[in-house]
């Protein structure tokens, strides 16, 4: 064995291997570093999820003395039933008040999130198509508006926006928020569609024109289907965003609460002794997350598609 070690051919081969390893490490140190950071990030994420899930099955009493170990007094699955019946929001109705529960809040959420996601995807898509296809000066102005509104730091216009929403009768209505969310300005998604439409050759449109298609037919039958994958991705991203958002419903439609707003109310406002505890708050959090997490699992490949905003310079 020792003789082998002293063999010049073997020593040379070992030295080559060593050099290869050193070269590999030198070439990839940046990736190792990033890999370590990403592993740590993943660990913290999974740690928080695991502890959140575990503690959601503890009784409030047990959580008082056992916050970091497995439940010792049994798994309290009934926490989920209690939380389901305890997530509610007190709203104004008629001349008085009423309590809206989970089912009503899920209906509000579906109407709010699907509607806002659809219109806030459709409007930038059509605007991007128009500005990309028709090279009028006005199209250039629209692109300029998008760039400027994205980078113009306007602070504190919410009171004015609320005042206007009240004046136009859009306040406290789901359809009012559909209208308010359906815009092209301040939108990175406009740039995504703009980039996509700019990449299509004019021959598509010209061929359709020769076949006698009018503008609407070209847009609906030729151009929009070409971006249907991007449309679906942007729609799903928006859907998730609107589903999870609670601040806009809190300000603009306090009497049609969404499930995310319900969780806010459950966590910070509703101080009922039966549910005002960390395990119950965690349980409420999981109840709210499950539907959108299922949507993510089903459409994961579609949502995680690469998007591009190249081509538009600010």
């Amino acid at each position: 064995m020792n003789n082998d070690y002293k063999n010049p051919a073997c020593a040379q081969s070992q030295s080559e291997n060593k050099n290869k390893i050193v070269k590999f490490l030198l070439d990839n140190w940046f990736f190792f570093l990033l890999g370590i950071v990403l592993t740590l990030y993943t660990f913290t994420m999974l740690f928080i999820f695991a502890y959140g899930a575990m503690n959601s099955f503890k009784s409030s009493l047990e959580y008082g003395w056992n916050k970091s170990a497995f439940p010792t007094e049994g798994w309290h699955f009934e926490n989920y039933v209690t939380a389901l019946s305890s997530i509610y929001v007190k709203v104004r109705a008629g001349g008085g008040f009423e309590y809206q529960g989970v089912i009503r809040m899920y209906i509000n959420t579906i109407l709010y999130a699907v509607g806002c996601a659809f219109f806030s995807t459709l409007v930038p898509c059509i605007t991007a198509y128009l500005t990309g296809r028709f090279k009028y000066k006005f199209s250039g102005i629209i692109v300029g508006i998008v760039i400027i509104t994205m980078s113009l730091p306007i602070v504190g216009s919410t009171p004015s926006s609320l005042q206007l929403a009240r004046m136009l009768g859009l306040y406290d209505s789901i359809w009012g928020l559909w209208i308010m969310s359906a815009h092209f300005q301040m939108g990175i998604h406009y740039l995504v569609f703009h980039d996509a439409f700019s990449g299509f050759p004019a021959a598509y449109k010209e061929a359709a024109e020769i076949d006698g298609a009018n503008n609407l037919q070209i847009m609906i039958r030729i151009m929009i289907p070409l971006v249907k994958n991007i449309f679906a991705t942007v729609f799903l991203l928006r859907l998730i965003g609107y589903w999870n958002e609670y601040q806009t419903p809190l300000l603009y439609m306090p009497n049609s609460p969404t499930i995310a707003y319900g969780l806010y109310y459950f966590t910070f406002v509703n101080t009922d002794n039966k549910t005002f505890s960390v395990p119950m708050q965690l349980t409420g959090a999981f109840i709210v997350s499950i539907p959108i997490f299922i949507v993510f699992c089903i459409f994961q490949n579609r949502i995680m598609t690469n998007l591009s905003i190249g081509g538009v310079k600010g």
Partner: protein
Amino acid sequence: MEKQKPLRSLNRKQKDLLFYVLLMAYPVIQFCIFYVVVNFNSILLAFKDYNYGTTGFESAGYQWVGFKQFAKIFTELKANPALSASIGNSLIVYAVTTISMSTLTVWFAFYIFKNKFASKFFRIILFLPQVISPLVMAVMFTSVAENVLPELLGKSGWKIPPLLSDVNTRFGTALFYSIWASFGTSILLYNGNMASIDPEVIEAATIDGADGFKEFLYIIFPLVYPTFSTFFVVHIAGIFTNQMSLHTLYGEMASPKIQTFGYYLFVRVAQGNLKEYPFLSAMGLMMTFIAVPLTLFVRWGMKKIGPSVD
């Protein structure tokens, strides 16, 4: 009387223009009302005050008061520690989040783009904060930072306070959380950008002996720089609206010492007092006057110092 011209007799250019005007009408009207009018009204509101009226509900409304609200800002800056602290905190949050987010996001995207170890899994993990509601993330994070970690580490003899309540750790912990829970869509956008880079350019760099970092610095970064600078400028635009996730972590009960201006403004708007609107608009207007030149300067700087694609 001249007969009305039927649609069929319009020539191609006229039809194009008609189609363009009809479809562009809604986005333009929406923009005029919900951007131009809202912001213009916000400026007007800053010069008004709400009067509850002396003869009942009908006489209540907004009245012109000149610069009264602006004078009130200076009084409040002296009297209200939450407001003065919030401006300083916003600047700190901005500097830390912009630098860390901008660099980490593009580095992570590069790692995923190069398809390194477990990159698909990391991509999903990085996207999770976008899928899970910020409130849900905050509830889970709070329980760990406040209860689980102090107990776990306490068992091994390392005593730490509840991280989100302790005076010395709450700001840093909230800042860490706001960065930790902010990855997601921007990584997809960078990956889209990187995927469109000509593979021959990357191959040439590898043949020339460039390691991973050099490949990133000299090939990838210059090519994704337009996206990078867009995000960088957009971050600045949020300098005084960034809430540092305080509302999701504390509701309306965040300590005045750790509040950001975005949080301070949101909480006061959410309280829904009509009398407050003019004062809040005046504060917003003032912060806009600070943020606009800063944004324009950074935008100009980003263009100047940007790496060359050549």
